[in-house]
């Protein structure tokens, strides 16, 4: 009678969820849009690439080792992280990119009927992971482009399990300072897990920016996310981690997928994390790029929001989707902000001077 319809087997919350469509590979995009070179300013990648020591590891990986499983729980990397942050290695959980550890946390603590709290104008993956897990997301509007602490506190109830704070926030670059974060954690008072996503932590140079890692021993319901994709230039290898109290991390470990992080990623990350020179060079590139961008955008009548992080959000006088397509004709790939609930804005990665110059030139052309 009826045809094969896999939808009928799906939970309602999966049926309603629309899969994310990633960009096509650069050569395909270049062909479709008729451009020679692609300037990747869409994913906040590090234009300098991985630190030289990590590059050396990648080059030295012998093909035969591909036949051997990696360390299932990134043993050496967790030991290294423990040493670096003066913690127990069991306070760390490494994942296939920070996106994967978002899933670990939600799966560990939430069941249908529970809710998570985050902001409306922030990284989408908290909301998406909750949606396809059947968990309600309570979106609190940003207040002056910043996470609204009081608004979030007012929405906690008995079914609130996780609160996600992106610090600094992607895409606005705003951040909570040490006092604000500490006050918030105290007011939550262990009613829920607080995740502070510090994906862009290494780019922040402000003195009052809190190092979440220093608070996890004092507050056992605090979980910190970090990644090797941004500052350490290992986005293509997919590696990130979370840190928390031993008891919280042990609970999250139950839903963690072992062996999901490959050997090259683990070994490259081990080297990358100590390379301070790479961090300094990247910070200098980002400072220079932001200064250039702010000045040049002003000349063409555009404004940018660029707080912390290696990105800036630019307000346009046109549909950001249309701007994306127009810029792609010249090979400039940006991130549209409609999905972040900033219509008519684009987010651009702060990259090398040539890319910044091309971006400004092409923005002027399309306006």
């Amino acid at each position, binding site marked *: 009678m009826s045809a094969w319809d896999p939808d009928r087997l799906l939970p309602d919350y999966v049926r*309603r969820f629309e899969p994310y*469509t990633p960009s096509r590979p650069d050569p395909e*995009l270049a062909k479709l*849009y008729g451009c020679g070179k692609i300037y990747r300013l869409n994913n906040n990648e590090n234009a300098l690439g991985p630190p030289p020591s990590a590059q050396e590891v990648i080059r030295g990986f012998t093909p035969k080792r591909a036949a051997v499983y990696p360390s299932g729980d990134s043993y050496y990397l967790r030991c290294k992280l423990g040493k670096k942050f003066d913690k127990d290695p069991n306070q760390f959980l490494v994942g296939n990119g920070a996106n994967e550890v978002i899933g670990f946390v939600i799966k560990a603590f939430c069941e249908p009927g529970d809710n998570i709290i985050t902001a409306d104008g922030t990284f989408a993956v908290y909301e998406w992971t909750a949606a396809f897990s059947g968990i309600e997301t309570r979106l609190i509007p940003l207040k002056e482009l910043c996470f609204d602490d009081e608004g979030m506190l007012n929405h906690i109830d008995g079914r609130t399990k996780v609160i996600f704070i992106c610090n600094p926030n992607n895409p606005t670059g705003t951040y909570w300072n040490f006092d604000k974060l500490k006050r918030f954690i105290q007011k939550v008072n262990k009613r829920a897990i607080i995740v502070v996503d510090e994906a862009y932590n290494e780019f922040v140079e402000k003195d009052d920016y809190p190092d979440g890692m220093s608070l996890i021993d004092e507050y056992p319901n605090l979980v910190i996310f970090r990644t090797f994709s941004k500052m350490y230039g290992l986005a293509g290898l997919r590696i990130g981690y979370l840190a928390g109290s031993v008891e919280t991390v042990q609970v999250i470990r139950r839903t963690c997928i072992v062996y999901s992080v490959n050997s090259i990623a683990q070994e490259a990350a081990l080297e990358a994390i100590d390379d301070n020179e790479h961090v300094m060079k990247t910070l200098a590139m980002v400072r220079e790029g932001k200064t250039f961008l702010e000045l040049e955008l002003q000349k063409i009548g555009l404004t940018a929001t660029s707080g912390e992080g290696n990105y800036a959000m630019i307000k346009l006088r046109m*549909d950001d989707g249309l701007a994306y397509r127009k810029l*792609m004709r010249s090979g400039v790939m940006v991130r*549209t902000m*409609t999905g972040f*609930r900033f219509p*008519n804005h684009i987010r651009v990665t702060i990259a090398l001077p040539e890319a910044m110059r091309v971006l400004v030139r092409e923005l002027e052309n399309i306006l």
Partner: protein
Amino acid sequence: MHSDKPFQAALELDCEQSMTPVVTSFVENAATCYGLDPADALDLTLSSEEIFTYLCSQCDHGEKVRIGCRYGAYFVELEFQFKADDFDLAAFNLTATHSLSCGEPNGETGLLIASRLVDRFSFSRKGGVSTLLMVKEKSYPHAQKEEAPQPKVMGDIVIRRPEPEELKLFIRQVRRYYDPCVTPLSFETPGKIVDMEAFGTYSIAIATDKSGTTGGGIIWTWESDKLVEFFGPYVLDQPRDFNIPQKLIEHMIGSIARTSAVGLITRSASPELRTEYFQPMGNLIFMDLEQTSCERSCYYRHLQEDTGTSVWAHPLVKSFLEAEYKRSFFAREIHPVTDEGEKSHLKSVIAADIVRETATAVLRPVWWGQDDSNLIETYVSTLLNERLFNIFFEMDLGRSWELHFTPGLLERGFQPRIVLPYAGTSDILILQYSGRVEV
């Protein structure tokens, strides 16, 4: 249509004429329970009888048909589902083979009669299963224009969902200030809008202040799981510096930004539309039931980053598509469809989605055959006789065979109008009948 929602009542039975009373009593009782008045319930019952009678005349002994009934706050929807293989699909061409006004209707005209008794009627086929959907709406009192009070100037603006009484008042005020061309037809009946909003057919946001003064609003509805259509924004006599249209548009975009919606379109832009949030997509001409025509500009916003795709094109519309893609900056590889003497089917099948309230019929290909041009001509003539003046044909540019309808459509007075990116398996090309309308 609401086919993604579960049935409240369903019936599966043998396709045997003797079962007709079971069908009619099921439909009549369900329709009455769900709030249709007796006359409307009877229309739906008669319509189901026509459909069932026709299916019985076509199917083999022992075949099953499933009849589902959905209730919405303002409508009752019936769905007939049956295996397509056992039926002559050409019969679902909603075209009259002889006049309805004289003599007994034959089986083929039964479907046409069924379509006349309901507010919406559509046929589709997926994976070997055919589905006929019929919607009968509740009757509502019409609003009077003079009922609306003069709006006051607002204080600090908040954008939010309205309460039912606020909504009715807002609709009356919009009717006072705006041409009906830029409002949904349902604005004639504010009570229906309240029910549509409660059911989720419409999402509505109003701009209001602490004192409860409403200064504007916007309405949006899901056309499909990929396309959202909106009406407005409407501003009720408020100072321009309040930026009400911008706030309403941004609120609407924020509400659908992380959903399955790929595109946002308006086919009835209000003068307050902030065009910097959209791109123009061409014009459509709409005619109401009194045959008064009105040209409407379409504006579109693509909600995602274009990943680029391939489309099929008949040589006769290739230049139109090239120009559209160039103008809208969508990256497309256009592949031509050709006729190189290969064997083709004799008969075409076209499905019709009819909305009587707006005098609109949207045709979609089910099967292509050599008689396409004649079938299109018959369709046009039948639909115009039914006072369905706004006739559209939608072709999915991801399905090469659908493009074979192109020469017949152009020959019979259709013109390519709009391309909707990713609205089907790929883009959708909408053609509109632009020939003579003689009724």
